[in-house]
Structure formats: structure tokens, C-alpha cells
């Protein structure tokens, strides 16, 4: 494929529960996510998409197998180092945006910087500029419940990008948005998140936004069924 590898999975197995209720969710995933591109992970509900990205982002530990993120084997990292690694190099956009309701838009966007150790004031200054770029100049001081879905999504994007992570993981970013706002959001993401040394992983089954994918991985029943470069023809239907 020619591009450097952002994330590499090798034989990742994940089981939930134990004994008779044991359920294997991932059946040995081998996957390489390229850097400098937007990779879509698609598949039906319950196929293990969320579990896989949780393992990639270090939120879940794999039952077996190895994961390298940006060349570091995260499955061998200690917990504290992993948390630090996540704070430094990963950005998240969640399905329900998961903004903190008690913080204003700019404060929400500033959280990752605060987690990294900045003061709230300097983090807010930094986040404020980003929000301006995302077109939220007027709504920066509002609370999430005062914002529309699209605006909330923009705040979530800002939060994912404010600390300039190498990898952005987005879980169903358009699920709670209508088609038009979803489209706008994806457009925006493509504009601000994409970069030559940054990988964007989008988990979705919203086929309307497939056009934004550089690579498309299809998952079914705990296995990567196909991983290929996206062609504009396919995304245009």
C-alpha cells in the first residue's frame, strides 16, 4: 500500500465472560491501518467493530494477540504508560458526542489539553482558536444542551483534535445527525483531521458517508472480511 502503518493488529482475540457464558467476539484480527489516510471500519451491528477500536485505543485489553500503535506495542505497555500514550496520541469522537454537560463548548474542547497537564486557562485559549476555525465563534461559551447536534459534533471534533493527536478514532460520528449535518461534519473532519502523518479511523455503518473513506475495512462476525482502497465510484451510489 506504500503508506506508513499507523496501527497494526496481529491475531487479536477478545473473549467476554468466562466458562459456559464465554463468548468470543474477535476471532483473530490481523489488520494494518495506514497513516495519512481516512480508514472506515464498517459492518453490521454486533460484529465487533467497537470492541476492536476499544482494543486499538487501549481501553480494552485483548485476550490474545498483539497491537502496535505508531510503532509501539500497546498490548505490552503498562497501564499508566498506556493512559499517558492515549492522552498524547489519540483523539476520540464518540457516537453521542459525550460532551461534559457541566462544561462550556470551549471548556469541553480544552479537556484533552488539561488532561495532558495544561492549565484550564491556557487550554481554553488554544481550544478557542480551533473552535473559531470550526465556525463556533458565537457559541463557544454555551453549554452542550444549548447547542444543536451539528454544533455539538463540531465541539466533539475540536476536542478530538485540540491536542493534535496522531490518530483520531471516531465512532459513528454521524449516527445522531441528519444527513445534511452528517455530511457537513464529515466534510469538516476531512478538512481539519486529515493530514499526512495522521490516521483517522471511522467506525460507521452510515453508507452515505462512505465517499469520505480512503480505505474501507469490512467486518463480519469478529473477522475482517475485506480491506481495500475506496474508489469514488463505489462511494457515489
Amino acid at each position, binding site marked *: 500500500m506504500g503508506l506508513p502503518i499507523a496501527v497494526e493488529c496481529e491475531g487479536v482475540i477478545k473473549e467476554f465472560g468466562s466458562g459456559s457464558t464465554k463468548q468470543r467476539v474477535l476471532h483473530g484480527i490481523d489488520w494494518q491501518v495506514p497513516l495519512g489516510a481516512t480508514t472506515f471500519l464498517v459492518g453490521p451491528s454486533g460484529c465487533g467493530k467497537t470492541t476492536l477500536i476499544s482494543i486499538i485505543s487501549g481501553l*480494552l485489553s485483548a485476550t490474545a494477540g498483539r497491537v502496535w500503535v505508531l510503532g509501539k506495542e500497546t498490548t505490552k505497555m503498562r497501564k499508566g504508560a498506556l493512559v499517558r500514550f492515549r492522552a498524547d496520541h489519540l483523539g*476520540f469522537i*464518540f457516537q453521542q458526542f*459525550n460532551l461534559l454537560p*457541566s462544561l462550556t463548548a470551549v471548556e469541553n474542547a480544552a479537556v484533552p489539553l488539561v488532561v495532558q497537564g495544561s492549565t484550564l486557562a491556557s487550554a481554553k485559549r488554544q481550544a478557542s482558536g480551533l473552535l473559531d476555525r470550526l465556525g463556533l465563534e458565537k457559541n463557544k461559551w454555551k453549554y452542550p444542551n444549548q447547542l444543536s447536534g451539528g454544533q455539538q459534533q463540531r465541539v466533539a471534533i475540536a476536542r478530538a483534535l485540540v491536542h493534535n493527536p496522531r490518530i483520531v478514532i471516531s465512532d459513528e460520528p454521524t449516527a445522531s445527525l441528519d444527513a445534511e449535518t452528517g455530511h457537513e461534519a464529515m466534510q469538516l473532519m476531512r478538512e481539519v483531521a486529515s493530514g499526512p502523518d495522521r490516521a483517522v479511523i471511522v467506525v460507521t455503518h452510515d453508507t452515505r458517508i462512505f465517499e469520505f473513506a480512503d480505505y474501507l475495512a469490512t467486518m463480519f462476525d469478529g473477522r475482517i472480511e475485506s480491506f481495500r482502497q475506496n474508489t469514488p465510484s463505489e462511494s457515489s451510489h
Partner: protein
Amino acid sequence: MFSIALKMLFHDRAKYLGLILGVAFSTLLINQQLGIFIGLITRAGAVIVDVPEADIWVMDPGVKNLDTIFPLRDTEIGRVRGVPGVAWAVPLYKSNVTIRTGNGELEASLLIGVDDSTLIGLPPEVVMGNIDDLRRPDAVAVSADGFRKVWRNQPFSLGNIAELNDRRAVVVAILKDSPKFTSSITFFTRYSQALQYTNNGRNQMSFIIGRSAPELSPEDVARRIVERTGLQAMSSRDFRWKAIMYVVQNTGIPISIGTVVALGILVGIAVVGLMFNLFVLENLKQFAVLKAIGTSNIQLLGMVFLQACVVGFVGFSLGLFGATMFFETAGKSPTFQGFFLPWYVAVGSGAVAACIIVLAALFAMRRVLFADPAIVFRG
């Protein structure tokens, strides 16, 4: 991070108020009940507190509290005075007499007879009159509460005449004394006068009260008195403690009030613990987000503890304020004298509140620490 924690805490005013009211309520309950309890049992030693001049009490070896008295022989005062280290010693008479109030009703009252020449044994605070007038014939001083009880609805005045065991007693002074268990009416008079009021012959000297020499501790001097005279002698502190412990060990007060205090603490723990736990639970998703973003467990713990500390501080202050205001306002009533909030109860309740908050926070933290950050990916 901590400002984020505070913003989380103050965001939901209703929940915040609920939390601090929970802490305030249990603090109030603990303080108020313990204050009343301590106010009640310290009444057992009220007579001792009212004689601040003396630091040694000498009595019959069998005496266990202030209400059951076996009189001493009159010559014992000489023996006690002869013990090295005793700066001075005077007799003190104490007994119960029946008095007839202004409207003819009978009331039990306490009669304290103090040393004729020095008048040592009177409570130091004089509300009205002059204690030197006690040297007059038939003169008595009455406690302020007793005056209100004997001469109802009358302003404080001197010269009122009471009937003590069919004998005339002229009020020449009104004193403020510590409230007693048995009766709030206390009459003070000279030792010799007290003997005439009771007039039941034989030995009369209830106690010998004395003072240790300045360079000696009252406990040491009391021990020496015991060795030399065979009587029971204690420092006033020890005697007070003994009288209080007698009440604690022989009455239902500790159990009844103790149950209420225990219930208050339990209710406090339950209310605060559950509410704080609920608060953390409701914010669990936010904590999960923070954790996903890369907040370490230690930072999360710090955040929850900060929130707990604020809730604890505000709630405890509110509760303590409520308790002190209770004692302040209720203390203005004449029937509710002698109750106060001891500082150690306030400190103790603070410790209890802190424990409640820490326990509740730890209980809630368990969920945060073991919270599956992956839930942020699930709807």
C-alpha cells in the same frame, strides 16, 4: 482537572444542595444529640463546677456521687487541714430540703451550706445582690433558675421570703449556678445556717473542700489526704468525672441518647453515602469520557475527593452552624440551661462527616476506577 471537577459538582445545583443538606443534617443530628447528652451527664457534677475555688474534695470513702452523701465527723476538717500540701480546707454542706413556693406549692430544692467566714462554695457569678449579705441572719442566696421557679412570673428582686423546712429564709442574693439533675432550685447559705434549716442532728459535714498548695498537683495532695486520714479525697476534676461516670453506668441516659446519636450517624452515612454514590454514578459517563481521553485513575480519584471535600466542608459547616444556633437560641430558655456544644463534639462530628464523605467517595470511586471506559463507545 480540579476546576473541571468543581464545575461538575456545581453544575447540578439540586443534587449539590441535596448532598450538602445530607451532610448538614447528619452533622446537626450528631452535634445536637451529643451536645444534649453531654449537657445532661455533666449535670451530675454541677455542684463541683460551681466551686471553682476548690480543687480537692474530701468525703466519706463510700461516696460515689454527689447525691448520696454520708456526713463526715466535724473533727475531720482539722485532720484534713493538717495534711501537708493542703493550702486550706473548709466544710461544705449539701442536702435536699423541701420548700414552699410563693403560691404554696412544694418543690424539692438543694441546700448548700458554705463556710461561714469565707463563704467559699458559692458559684462565682452573681446576678443580683451581694453575697456578703449572706452573713445576715436567715439570709439565703438562690439560684437564678430557682428564683424563676419559686416566684413565677416575678422579676428578680431581693428580700423575698421563702420557707425552708418551716423556717424563714430571706433572699439576699441571686446567683447563677450550673443546672443540676434533680432540681433547678438551689439555695445557698452559711454552713451554720444550713444546719439550722435541716436540723437533723448528728454529723452534718457533707464534704470538705480544699485547695492544694500552688506548687502541688491536687491529685497528689488528694492521695496524701487519703493516706493520712483514711477518707476519700479526689481532685475536683476526678470527682466530677466519677460523678458523671456514675450516671453513665447507672442510668439509661447513655443508651437512650447513644441510640439516637448512633441512628443519626447511620442515617447520615446512609443519606450522604447513597447520595454521593448516586452523584458519582450519574457522572460515571463523564468520568468514563475523561478516562478514555487519558485521565489517570489517580487524577480521577483526586477529582472525586475534591468534590467530596467541598461537599463535606459546606455540609458540615451548615450542620454545625445549625447545631450551634440551636443551642444558642434554645439556651435562652430558662428550662434549657447548661446545654452547650462542646468543641470536642464538633471536632468529632467533623471527623465523622469526613469519614462519611471519604467512605462514600471511596464507594463511588470503586465504580469510577473499575468503570469500563469502553462504555463511551456504546450508546
